[in-house]
Structure formats: C-alpha cells, structure tokens
C-alpha cells in the first residue's frame, strides 16, 4: 500500500514538473491525483452528474431518520424547534402542477424545504455533505438514498414501498412539488448566463425638494419590546455624540432629564467554564440553559436531579428517552472528565 502511494506521488511530482514549464508560475502547485479528486469532488449537480450508484428504501430511510435525524428535524420532518421544518405545505395537486400552491397563501405560517426546493439533486447533495449536523459526511450513499426516500414519502411524493436509487432519481425529479417554481428573470446575477434581466426592478429617483406628499409612520416597535434586545445603554460606547438608551427603565420624560450612566457589568459567572465545555461537546445543539429546545432546559434537569452527579454522568454517557419526551438523546462520546464536570455542575451549581 505504502509502495503504491509512493509511486503515485512520484508520478505526480514528475507530471508537475512537466506541467509547470507550461505555466507562468513554475514551481507553484501540483497535479491532483485521481484519488484526491475522488475524495473531495462530492457535489451532485441538477443533471445528477456526480451521483454515486446506490439505493435505499423508505423503510430503511426511516430507521436512519429516527436514530440520526429526528432529534433535530422531528419524527415527521415537521420540527420547527431547531431548524425550519422540512416537510409540510405541499399536496398531491402540487406534484401534478409543479407549483406549490401554499406559497401564495399569506396566512400559511412557514415555508418548508419541500415547499421551496425544485431540484432533487440539492437534497441528495446536502444530506450527503452536511448531515447529520454534528457528524457530517458520516452517511453511506445507500443511507442518503434511504433518508431522501423517507422524506419524499413523508411529503407524499412517493409511496410507502418506494426504493430510491441512482437509476430513478431523474424520474422522481419530475414529481418534485415545486419543480417549476423558480425564475431567473432578475438583474441580480452578474453576467448573462441565466438569461436574466438587464435593469433593476426598483426605480427610485434622487428627488431633492417636496418629494413625499405625506409622511405616514407605518411601523414601530411596541413599548413592551423596549428591552427585548438587552440594555441598549450597554451596546453603545461610553463616550460620543450619543449614548445608548437605558432600556431597563422607561424612556426619559424630556431633554431636561439627565441621561443615566451605563449599568454595571456582570461578573463572569461560575458557569462560564462549563458552558464552554457544553459548546465544545455539541450539547448546545439540542439544549439551552433556560429554555427547552429539542431536549429539556438544563436548568430543569438540574432542578430534577439535585446532588445526583453520578446518575447524571451515567445518563449523559448512555443517552436515553422517555423522561423528557419521546425525542431520544443519543449516547454521548465526550471525555469522562468533561462528562463528570458537566454532571457536577448540573447537580450542584446550575440551579443557582
């Protein structure tokens, strides 16, 4: 194996030498080996160039989905807790027309991935290169086919017994609910490759005097949102022509009320080190300290298990399901010392 690699490298060096003489930057860069190109050239185009051979059924996909995808995307792809929902808002009628009718409904709350995407290749490519979120590029091609088959089935594009493969991707493309929903007739692509418009779609003029007939305020933040982005006094420099508004308090009455100073900085909390560990080990992908995400709020966990560090460490290691709902927590591979630190913090300090 080593000898083979060595000979490939030798060959590469030789070629570089020959090639370099034909460029104006001799000695810079080298030829990529076919194996290197194979390792990185993973993109799949809309015409399915780059698609590896393989297949996966809806049932196989469901298995992968429930263990690796459901925790973020929901068992039925409906989750809006971590990422935008993938499935929903499309109908069998859309599969016929190629236009998603829901996109015209202003009362429809979300735009799911299946409502928007027109190209099947996009989904295969992205699942393959970027999913699962915390361990991208770990799925085998057959698993990607299976997961995509399961999603297509959830979106009622293909039947329960469907097997998706490199051979029928082009046919399924013709069933994509929003396959005719794209246009490029705009002036926002530099160049003319898209057959796009030359002129921008808005046309203002630089009027200088008596321009607007009337000035009507149409939108403003409600008073209750005054402090929603934190204290704005802390978000402006101490000196300058303006100060930040002290949003922890009501507005000052008038110009004669002095502008109050900036509030005291919070001391770095004892929890900061643990929060870094939680980040490092991807815990925050599913948990937040004060609110429920996919998993329970860490504060709630801490309240439920005071002084039970050993139990908590065990649960982090093994994962589990049922205590906080039916979305499973996968077993965690963090180091023992990290897990112990996190468990100790949960058991003792997190509630304070």
């Amino acid at each position, binding site marked *: 194996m080593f000898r083979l690699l060595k000979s490939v490298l030798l060959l590469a060096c030789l070629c570089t030498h020959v090639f370099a003489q034909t460029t104006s930057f001799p000695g810079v860069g080298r030829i990529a080996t076919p194996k290197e190109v194979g390792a990185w050239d993973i993109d799949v185009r809309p015409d399915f160039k780059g698609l590896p051979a393989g297949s996966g059924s809806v049932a196989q996909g469901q298995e992968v989905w429930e263990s690796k995808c459901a925790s973020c995307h929901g068992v039925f792809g409906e989750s809006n807790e971590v990422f935008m929902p993938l499935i929903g808002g499309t109908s069998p009628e859309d599969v016929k027309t190629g236009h998603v009718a829901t996109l015209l409904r202003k009362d429809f709350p979300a735009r799911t991935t299946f409502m928007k995407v027109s190209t099947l290749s996009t989904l295969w490519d992205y699942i393959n290169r970027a999913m699962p979120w915390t361990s991208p590029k770990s799925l085998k091609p057959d698993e990607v086919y299976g997961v995509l088959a399961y999603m297509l089935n959830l979106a009622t594009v293909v039947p329960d017994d469907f097997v998706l493969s490199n051979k029928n991707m082009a046919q399924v493309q013709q069933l994509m609910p929003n396959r005719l929903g794209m246009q490029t007739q705009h002036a926002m692509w530099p160049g003319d490759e898209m057959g796009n418009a030359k002129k921008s*779609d808005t046309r203002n003029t630089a009027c200088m005097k008596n321009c607007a007939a009337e000035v009507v305020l149409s939108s403003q933040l409600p008073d209750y949102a005054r402090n929603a982005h934190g204290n704005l006094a802390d978000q402006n420099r101490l000196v300058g022509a303006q100060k930040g508004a002290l949003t922890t308090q009501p507005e000052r009455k008038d110009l004669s009320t002095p502008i109050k100073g900036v509030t005291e900085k919070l001391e770095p909390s004892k929890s900061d080190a643990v929060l870094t560990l939680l980040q490092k080990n991807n815990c925050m992908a599913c948990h937040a300290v004060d609110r429920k995400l996919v998993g329970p709020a860490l504060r709630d966990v801490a309240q439920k298990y005071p002084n039970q560090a050993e139990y908590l460490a065990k649960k982090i290691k093994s994962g589990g399901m049922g205590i906080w709902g039916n979305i499973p927590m996968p077993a965690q591979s963090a180091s023992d010392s990290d897990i112990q630190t996190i468990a100790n913090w949960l058991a003792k300090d997190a509630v304070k």
Partner: protein
Amino acid sequence: MTSTASTKRGRIQRAPENFLSQQDIKNYQNAEPNARRGFLRSAFLAAAASAAAFSPVAQGQVTTPAVEDGDPNILNLPEHSTHLGQAVATHPYGLPSKYESNVQRRQSPGLTQTTQSSVAFAPLQSLFGIVTPSGLHFERHHQGWWDIDPTKHRLMINGLVKTPMVFNMDDLMRLTSVSRFHFIECGANTAVDWGNVAVPTVQYTHGMLSCSEFTGVPLITLLEMAGVDLKKAKFVLAEGADGSSMTRTIPMSLILSGEVLVAYGQNGEMLRPENGYPLRLVVPGVQGVSWVKYLRRIEVGDMPYATKDEAVHYMDLMPDGQHRQYTSIQECKSVVTTPSGGQVLFDKGFYNITGLAWSGRGKIKQVDVSVDGGRNWRHARLESPIMSKALTRFNVDWVWDGKPAIIQSRAMDETGFVQPTYKQLRSVRGTRSIYHNNAIQSWLVQENGEVKNVQIA
C-alpha cells in the same frame, strides 16, 4: 446684518424638521393605527407652512462646569499623569481599551435556535470610517467555525480544466497577490424588517455588513494555471472545508474580470478563524454566502449547481409564488449609523449625521440625507476613499431644534441606480421576500432625544 451666529449657520440649511409638535406626537401615540395617517399628514402640512420660521435653539450652547472652581478631572491630576505607565509588549497582540467593552458583535435574541448555525452582528453604531476591525467583523456560520491548521489546508481546482491541481498555503502565498477593499453583506441583512420593524438598533438591522482590505490571488490566475477551458466554462462551484462544506455557484463574469479573489489576508493580517482562516473566496458586490470560507475546492462547470443555499435558502419569494433564484448582487444601499435606533441625543444643538453607503455594482456617486421623513433632501459629503464595491462613509451637519425628526439616507451608485423606498421595494417584491432588502432606513428622533427604528408607509 443679524448676528455672527446666524452667519456661521449659513452653510447649515435649516431643515424643516419641526414638523411635529409635542401635542401631535401625543395625539399620534394615543391614536388608533388607522387614525395615525391623518395626524401625521396634517402635521407635515403644518411644517411646510411654517418652514420659514427661525428657531433660536440651534445657536451655540456652551455648558459650564458643574463645580464652582472647575472640573475635578482637570484640577486633580489623575494617576496616569503622575505615575509610571505599563511596559511595551504587555499585550504582545494588542487589545482594545477596557472602556470599549460595549463595542461587540452580538446575536439577535430569538433569531436563531442554535449558536453554530447563527449570526453575530457588527456594531455599526460604534464604528468609524469604512474598515471593520477584524474582531468586530460580522459572523455567519452554517455548522460552527473552526481554527484550521494552515499547513494542512489544501485548495483543489478541478472540473473543466486540462489538469486538476492542488495548492497548499505556501503555494498560494507565493503567487502574485493583490490587496483590495470590499464590503461583504449577507443577503439576509435587514431581512427581519422586510414586513415591519422588528429590531431596535442599526447593529441588528444592518450589522451583517463589514468592509475589509482583503489580500489574495485572483481566482482566474489559478484557473489559468490549471488550464481552464474558457469556451465551455460558464459557472464555477466554490466549496468549503467545514462540516457543511458550504457550496455556491460563482458568476463567471466576475472571475474573468479578475475581481474574484482567493484571499488569505484581511486588514494586514491573516483572516480571522471566524472569517474563514486560512482561505476564503472574495466575490465583490455579491452576497456574503458566496464568499465561501475555509475554501477547499473550486470546480469549473457548464451549468449552475443549485446548491442548498441557492435552491432552499437565499431565494426571493415573489408575490406570484415564484422564487427568484441565483439573486446575488447586493444592490445600492445606505444607512445612517448615528444618530440611529436605540441611541439618545443629550440635548438640542449640533450633531454630525454619519453613515455608510455601498453598491454591489460599483462606486457610490451620491448620498442624500433627509431629516423630515423624505420630503426634502440634502447632499451628504462623501469621505474618501470612494472605492468600487467597498463601503463609503458619508457625513452631513445637522442642528437639531428639539422637535421630532425622521432621519433617512438615500444612496445612488455610478450606474445611476437610486436606493428604493420600502414602498417601491414592496410594490415589486411584496413583503415575504426575506433577502436583499435595500430599502431606505428611517430613524425617528423623538422630542425626548430617544431615537427609534420606524418605517414609513
């Protein structure tokens, strides 16, 4: 001849900003939304009628020290004037003053559910000139950021080329380099305000915007080294090395013009990890998502790639239910950075209105500023340098008379394109477009000095 004060004020045109009386504002605030239109209209008509009235408020107000003998900061010599200071290289890599800790990039609460697929906004309200300090450059990651060992980083060129090639960082930094100033703006900048006002300050409305001097190699140089087939080549795919291996289709025309750079330098040092260390693509004038970070591969092709961020996101939903795909150019836009939302003016008197203007199609030609909600405008001073597809700083003098005012800026680029109003933008693209909101921003200065983010119908 009246007074010297009024002669000096001559170059400051008195703007008809006193178009709303205190009573008008009270009436407005107490009124039902439907009735507000009428109040504002009558107030503006009144303002036009009284435009000739002279307000004495603006004339030089000099405050006297509160202490009888003088300012203790002057009278009592401080420690730093009477003791020895700190040694050189106390901080081998320097830090901002501890008193600048309010100037930070920030997340917008509730905008995203995770911190790795999220955004941190640059504090535009606190920045000067046009260069964004690298530590305050806005952040947008799709799968978290990494600090990548540059000795192990590689860039591959493949696709429609004679010879697929690999470059390491030594190779890339050995090649002929260029340094250029360019803005980078996320396609979703100001997205939260598409439908209505949603956030309080310019950091959150416009903070997915930064400008740096980038150093690197024109991509066309690398493509030529690999023997690119320019007859067949129509589109290029750029791919990152991070978890999401972010991909985007890059416009060929910008590559051919030599504008697209494979960059490693930012403001005189290497890129920061949050901005793609050690290598990122620079695509001037095009939305930030195309500036692929941790760049590992360039593929030359003959059709667009419909990647996730051009087939699921970064598309503009039009009122007819169709999505505009491959919208890339950031059209001409500007914003007043001070006074801006969430700030408080101390008192009446002089203020410098300052802001930033930019265009994805070239240089900024003109910026106009209004303090009466867009009825009347004045040309702002454009500060040099004025560079193509870079931020341009503008300033205009203003004497505030203490009456409510609505501050706006409106930029025009060298193609003659003028930044649209919200009304104009929505009339074409509706209110659910999300991306590419380049509408004129309005800041309401209230009588109590607080500045609010508002929109005008």
